[in-house]
């Protein structure tokens, strides 16, 4: 028996593979058809203070080995989230982590406090604070690329909840380790990275950006090496766990992240290609660990030989 169970803020997840925010809805879309018990954690679509209709359409476009999206945090808002989604989470066979977005630091704390107060039974395992959405005017990348704002936001949210608190980082910065350290200083239990990379696709026939907002966020295999590099650096800069993601399509990709220093991973765009992928990957990672003689998450980290 090996225990590849990430511990974040004192709580344990069932395995290292989560499904990334925005790519698995609230689980309900998949629940009837898939066994979700093999998933380590389900990160919900972002929840915000008020309902958001999302950005103008089209919202997604394919790029070479990637996906560019501009969903714009379309969601039902915290109140309907509590009424419509929370009850379902209680019976979900996997941990559910609420991804929270907001326009400014105090608002993040307010949303988290509201969710905490309205979830007395603890259907929510913890929170992932999204200070890294490239598709909103306020509270996204702009906030997440400012270390002191990230620290302040984390500190405010920290006082609002005792549950595990993960801060999700953007790669669109000069030095992601600086932002990670700010999150750690603010009291985060873990950081997750990477959110999407800013990109643009122009439809040369229609002579305009495919996404009405102009730019969007790039995900999928194209960004795999960018995410692995980010996790490698961040995990050497902070002492809290790092949750890695970006472009994971195969078990080998996931193991790259674990070797790079991730304590857990998330699968995003790959869910669109195969919604069963997280469960399969979790099993395959266990098998890899057994074959490699690894019996803990730290064991993965020390597999990597020091470079250069």
């Amino acid at each position: 028996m090996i225990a590849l169970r990430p511990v974040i803020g004192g709580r344990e997840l069932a395995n290292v593979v989560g499904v990334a925010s925005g790519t698995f809805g609230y689980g309900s879309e998949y629940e009837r058809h898939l066994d979700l018990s093999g998933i380590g954690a389900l990160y919900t679509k972002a929840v915000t203070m008020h309902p958001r209709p999302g950005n103008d359409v089209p919202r997604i476009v394919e790029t070479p080995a990637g996906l560019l999206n501009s969903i714009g945090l379309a969601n039902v808002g915290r109140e309907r989230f509590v009424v419509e989604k929370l009850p379902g989470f209680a019976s979900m066979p996997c941990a559910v982590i609420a991804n929270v977005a907001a326009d400014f630091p105090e608002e993040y704390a307010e949303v988290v406090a509201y969710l905490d107060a309205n979830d007395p039974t603890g259907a929510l395992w913890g929170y992932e604070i999204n200070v890294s959405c490239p598709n909103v005017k306020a509270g996204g990348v702009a906030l997440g690329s400012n270390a002191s704002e990230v620290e302040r936001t984390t500190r405010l949210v920290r006082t609002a909840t005792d549950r595990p608190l993960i801060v999700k980082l953007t790669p669109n910065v000069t030095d992601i380790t600086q932002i990670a350290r700010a999150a750690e200083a603010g009291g985060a239990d873990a950081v997750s990275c990477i959110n999407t990379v800013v990109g643009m696709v122009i439809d040369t026939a229609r002579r305009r950006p495919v996404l009405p907002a102009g730019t969007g966020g790039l995900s999928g295999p194209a960004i795999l090496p960018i995410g692995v590099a980010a996790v490698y650096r961040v995990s050497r800069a902070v002492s809290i766990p790092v949750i890695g993601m970006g472009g994971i399509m195969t078990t080998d990709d996931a193991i790259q992240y674990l070797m790079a220093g991730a304590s857990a991973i998330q699968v995003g765009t790959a869910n669109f290609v195969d919604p069963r992928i997280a469960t399969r990957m979790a099993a395959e990672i266990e098998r890899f660990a057994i074959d490699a003689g690894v019996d803990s998450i730290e064991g993965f980290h020390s597999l990597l030989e020091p470079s250069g």
Partner: protein
Amino acid sequence: MPLFTARVLANQEVAHDYYQLDFSWISDAPRPVPGQFLTVRVGSSGVPLLRRPFAFSDAAGERASMIYWRRGDATRAIAGYQPGDAIDVMGPLGVAFPEPTDGAVPVLIAGGVGVGPILFLANALAARAPYPILLIGARSAQGLPRVRVDGRVQLRTATDDGSAGYAGTVIDLLDRTLDITAGDVELYLCGPNPMLRAGHDLAARHGIPAWVSMEQTMGCAVGACMGCAIHLTGVERYARVCTEGPVFRSTDVDWERL
């Protein structure tokens, strides 16, 4: 949302650059109905990355079909599939075309990639009177699909260049058809957006109901990602084509903001 590996049964050109793919359908998956779609994963290299949605053009017993336009990476790859090849499919997805109101003559209009689902609907509605009228449009004769249509369906074709059938757009033909069709009529349209919109305008002018099957680029295809939104009428209202659609009442669609 069943996901499974189907087998290609046949893959044949039915019009210039249009193909019909027949594949096995597992018996314990829900039976697809007209208007619904499936998604196909093409290759495993990451290019093309996303699954591709296609409407069912038929489904009976352990067999289902789609008609697709060979236009880009994914559909070019699909055009190369041979009988016996495995295909990774997910479906049936989305909502179906509603039944016509009792006694109304269903008039079905297809153009381009809309042929598949409209054909499926026509053959389904042929089982009861009043029998459907099916109008298929194409640029020219070689774009008209060679497909199996139930004998009770009244089929008329239109070509822009007049090389076959009515000379004009399929919407012009629809206009003529409405003039000579007695009693209640209900429209069902699938095809390029300008065609759908013209059909909607015509329906509005005649005060008849119209159903349209819409397209949008899809991520998850099951309602989870909010990627496939289109504008509905009303203030900031969006609907997901994959789950609230692909079939919509034409008056619900915001035609100004496609």
